[in-house]
């Protein structure tokens, strides 16, 4: 392991690997990534594998759209000899009540202003898109054919491999134990395998971002929350798009190689770092699927697992540098959609670190917004 670096990135998920790749591509030579477990072992590797453009805020729409445009060519751009398994089967968002449907209408207007090809669809059309969908409990739906599925492991591996070829040093099973600050300036990082002198640290740890920020004395208003997922045995192609609803509390998608992957939230989850599985989740999930997508309930569950959402008060991410600690950067608080935003996270953070003109102006996603109250409240999170 190097004992000094120009940039140290903490976290080996999609965000950390994408930031490392973008910095290296722009010519930064001495980059080190620290990961306390193995690459993609945290929130990225546990996510629902969906990517979408259909958001409720202009900012998230812009980031989501640009990220998907990158993913359309990810294998080529990252010169990846495996396959990131990108499938654009679309997202069918379903509303369970009038209020939610009114919100969908507003969201579609925001999406259209950003050039996103989403549309309101009637319940009849929703049944044409997903024939086994029980529309009797729905009030409306929207669809965007550009949304879809992407393999989180392979995508992260693609960024990791590309960054490695550009000379980035990755240290797995290396846990950060402290960040040294002198005269309000970052001077080094301490790990269980030794120290690294550096004037630039990027926190890309999502679920664990609060603890890392505490190491430099910054209190970020984020908390982590367990979200659970299950996967079924594989079957013949049955469902093209992701089916997702907020009030109905589900997302269900068939992966390209056959299994269905599905999840739901639980607003009674305690705010902590546990990632254990519960029987309550599997039972509630089964009941929801049995009601909304009956044929899928004939499939067997083969596995369930959990990961962390890193929640902010407005459910939008934080891309910022610290005001009072020079050289401390944050790309955190994705509130459940860090994987989808991966490509743009790397672009905007590398631009911020190098003082370049931003591709997308993300200055509104600053940390200070939680003090000033200028929030970007995202209504569309399961």
């Amino acid at each position, binding site marked *: 392991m190097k004992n000094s670096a120009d940039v140290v990135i903490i976290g080996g998920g999609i965000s950390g690997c994408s930031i490392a790749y973008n910095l290296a591509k722009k010519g930064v030579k001495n980059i080190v990534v620290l990961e306390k477990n193995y690459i993609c072992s945290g929130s990225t590797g546990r996510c629902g594998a969906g990517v979408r453009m259909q958001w409720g805020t202009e900012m998230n729409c812009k980031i989501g759209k640009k990220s998907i445009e990158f993913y359309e060519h990810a294998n080529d751009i990252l010169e990846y000899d*495996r396959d990131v398994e990108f499938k654009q089967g679309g997202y069918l968002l379903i509303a369970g009540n009038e209020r939610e449907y009114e919100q969908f209408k507003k969201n579609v207007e925001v999406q259209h202003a950003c050039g996103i090809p989403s549309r309101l669809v009637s319940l009849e059309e929703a049944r044409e898109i997903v024939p086994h969908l029980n529309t009797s409990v729905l009030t409306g739906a929207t669809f965007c054919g550009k949304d879809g599925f992407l393999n989180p492991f392979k995508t992260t591996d693609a960024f990791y491999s590309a960054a490695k070829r550009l000379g980035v040093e990755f240290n797995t099973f290396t846990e950060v134990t402290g960040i040294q600050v002198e005269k309000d300036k970052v001077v080094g990082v301490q790990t269980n395998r030794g120290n690294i002198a550096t004037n630039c640290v990027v926190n890309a740890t999502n679920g664990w971002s609060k603890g890392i920020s505490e190491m430099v004395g910054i209190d970020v208003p984020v908390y982590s929350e367990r979200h659970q997922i299950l996967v079924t045995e594989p079957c013949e192609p049955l469902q093209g798009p992701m089916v997702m609803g907020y009030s109905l509390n589900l997302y269900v998608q068939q992966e390209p190689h056959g299994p269905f992957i599905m999840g739901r939230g639980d607003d009674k989850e305690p705010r902590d770092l546990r990632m254990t*599985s519960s029987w309550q989740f599997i*039972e509630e999930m089964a009941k929801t699927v049995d009601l909304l997508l009956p044929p899928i309930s*004939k*499939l067997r*569950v*083969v*596995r*369930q*697992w959990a990961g962390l959402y890193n929640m902010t008060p407005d459910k939008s991410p934080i891309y910022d540098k610290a005001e009072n600690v020079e050289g401390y950067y944050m790309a955190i608080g994705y509130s459940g959609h860090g994987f989808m935003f991966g490509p743009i996270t790397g672009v905007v953070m590398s631009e911020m670190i190098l003082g370049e003109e931003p591709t997308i102006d993300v200055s509104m996603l600053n940390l200070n917004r939680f003090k000033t109250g200028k929030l970007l409240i995202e209504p569309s999170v399961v």
Partner: protein
Amino acid sequence: MDENTIICRCEDVTLKEVRDLIKQGYVTYDEIKRITRIGMGPCQGKTCGQLVMREIANATGQKMQDVKFQTNRPPVVGVKLGLIAEEGRRDEE
């Protein structure tokens, strides 16, 4: 042994694929799992797990007992979602 032998029957992964990944530096069960899907199919690693761990042990010089297997996740065997839903609704009655 023939390197084209399939050692993960759920996801059709050959011995050669596993050995190539180990050579490329993917030296833990979890890392190999995330690239190949070994251990993610209906058997949940019950068939292939020992074989992959032995390959890792042989390549890295570790003892078998020191090679870490994946996290065992519920359910123990595949269960139909409809059956779980039915039992869940019965509890509510």
